[in-house]
């Protein structure tokens, strides 16, 4: 079986074939022999190339993406077969293109600190969302101008809701 796996903007071709009671996985120009045992509904124990034991947890991603794979205590967003994922990487904002600032969690908008047309600097707070009893400042990912404001004070927002667009 051949899969296309996208991690952090890098796309890999990964092929998986059974090799006796293990899997032979071709990735990045090499072959890994992987022993797989299921621990629970979300967790696999892998032993890679016969010596490296490591637990891997696979869960549907929180922010509407594909999968979050937790390995070595580090959550890694993964898209399989080119499915579109949108989450932190995009809304973090690069140096070019509009930044679409989305609510990272459900909550209530307590303050909107910018209006369309305002100039903003990277890391400048633009919206304050109250969730889990704390006021959380959401900041601009880059320098630019506010193009759109989609929320007003007092509004409840769901995770992933578009708040502000910065050009």
């Amino acid at each position, binding site marked *: 079986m051949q899969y296309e796996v996208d991690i952090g903007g890098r796309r890999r071709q990964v092929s998986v074939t059974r090799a006796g009671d293990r899997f032979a996985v071709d990735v990045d120009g090499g072959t890994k022999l992987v022993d797989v045992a299921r621990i629970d*509904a979300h967790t696999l124990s892998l032993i*890679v190339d016969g010596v490296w034991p490591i637990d891997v947890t696979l869960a549907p991603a929180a922010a509407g993406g594909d999968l979050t794979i937790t*390995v070595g205590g580090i959550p890694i967003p*993964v898209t399989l077969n080119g499915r579109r994922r949108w989450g932190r990487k995009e809304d973090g904002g690069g140096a070019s293109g509009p930044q679409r600032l989305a609510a990272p969690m459900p909550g209530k908008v307590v303050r909107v600190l910018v209006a369309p047309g305002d100039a903003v600097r990277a890391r400048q707070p633009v919206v304050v969302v109250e969730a889990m009893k704390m006021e959380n400042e959401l900041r601009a990912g880059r320098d630019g101008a506010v193009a759109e404001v989609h929320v007003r004070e007092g509004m409840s927002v769901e995770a992933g809701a578009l708040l502000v667009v910065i050009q």
Partner: protein
Amino acid sequence: MHKILIANRGEIAVRVIRACRELGISPVAIYSECDRTALHVRLADEAYPIGPSAPRESYLRADRVIDAVRRSRADAVHPGYGFLAENAEFAAAVGAAGATFIGPSPEAIAAMGSKTAARAAAARAGVPVVPGTADPLPHEMPDAEIAETASRIGYPLLVKAVAGGGGKGMRTVSDPADLSGAIASARSEAGAAFGDAAVYIERRITRPRHIEVQLLGDAHGTVVPFVERECSIQRRHQKVVEETPSVAVAPALRRAITSAAAAVARAVGYTNAGTIEFLLDESGAFYFLEMNTRLQVEHPVTEMVTGLDLVRWQIRIARGERLDVDPERLLTPNGHAIECRIYAEDPDNNFLPSPGRIQHLRVPGGPGIRDDSGATAGLDVPIFYDPMISKLVAWAEDRPLAIARMRRALREYVVAGIRTTVPFFQWLLAQPAFAEGAFHTTYLDELLRSRNGHPFAEPTPELEQLAAVAAAIDAALSPSSSGAAPASDGRNGSATRWRAQARAEGLGGV
């Protein structure tokens, strides 16, 4: 005392249930809508729904909690911390309902619950307080007058909620131009969090340590202080790491600060568990900050080095028992203990809350490790409450060993499905300044600023490759992939079961 209603949720409700069980007392839980599946509900003997998920409609509704007390015929109420724990009217209402409030008297809560009144009480007991306004700022006070008061106290200063705690409703002001904005936002946050928008001003001591003293007082006039806790590792005024003893407190200072704490408690006739917080400045002088008239989040570290069970003692004191403990033992720590507060927050995204379902949970264990948690796999961390999911505590013979043990335990801790602060703690405990104990209450905020958003948990190319391998294997085993070889031997038989389970879980349908 046969039945105790726990007027709380989460890890602290579980903690109190455990103490009840060990005393042969029946624990009663209350729960909001979203907490139906919470661990504290499942561990209790009885459970009463008290309303919708928002705290103001459930855990803060004293009338509904009292109704559950009546219906369950509980003879005592343990308030935990937060919610109604420091609400004098609630404590009085418990008494009026014929049950015992496991905590201080309503009068003591009222006296110490107002930060301004508590400062006055400390001053009367001869304990130094941080310079500041004696009373809350009147709402109608003109800005010019506030500015004048502030400049008399001196900048930098803190605007603090009179009913405050946990850094909520608190603002640091260095520039007089920011003062009125800070007061407005502190009032708004305090009003939302505590239902009381009153604030006052005090001078900000530069680079202080936060040192606090746990106390127990019985109904027979005995008050005993415990060895200090150091809680200087704070992020935005919220404690994130606590330890005991403090590297900054030598035996003579310990005598002085614990005696001062006991004097304040005696001055207000304090009973049950409480904590007096102090600021320790760079010259070694200490100032009364406030008193918390309840059990503290960080009480486990004190339990680890003294061997006492503070919750059990809270219950025993409420039953009228005498505190027959050797005071010297409480001031002589056995070894060292550290606590890390594990939060459902994303440290790589400005510590924003990360609610959601815990898909997988592996809790560390082994020598010297204690995990006080209300979380289980399959449970949703709700958006409505404090995002703390667990308190991880490490004990060892000395501080370096306790740090090593904590780092080992953090390596073992796996929480998948939500982001947590585990990677942040792995980084923090590896800092040289942490190893030396060279910190103060703004150390962490300064350190975090200097990182400039650099991620705590950065996958290595090796781990990314492994994630790609795991994703592909998972997909190959999923029911919709036709290419997987059919099961034949025993090993593949387990793969078949695995596919069936994946199907049942709705997993891997890629």
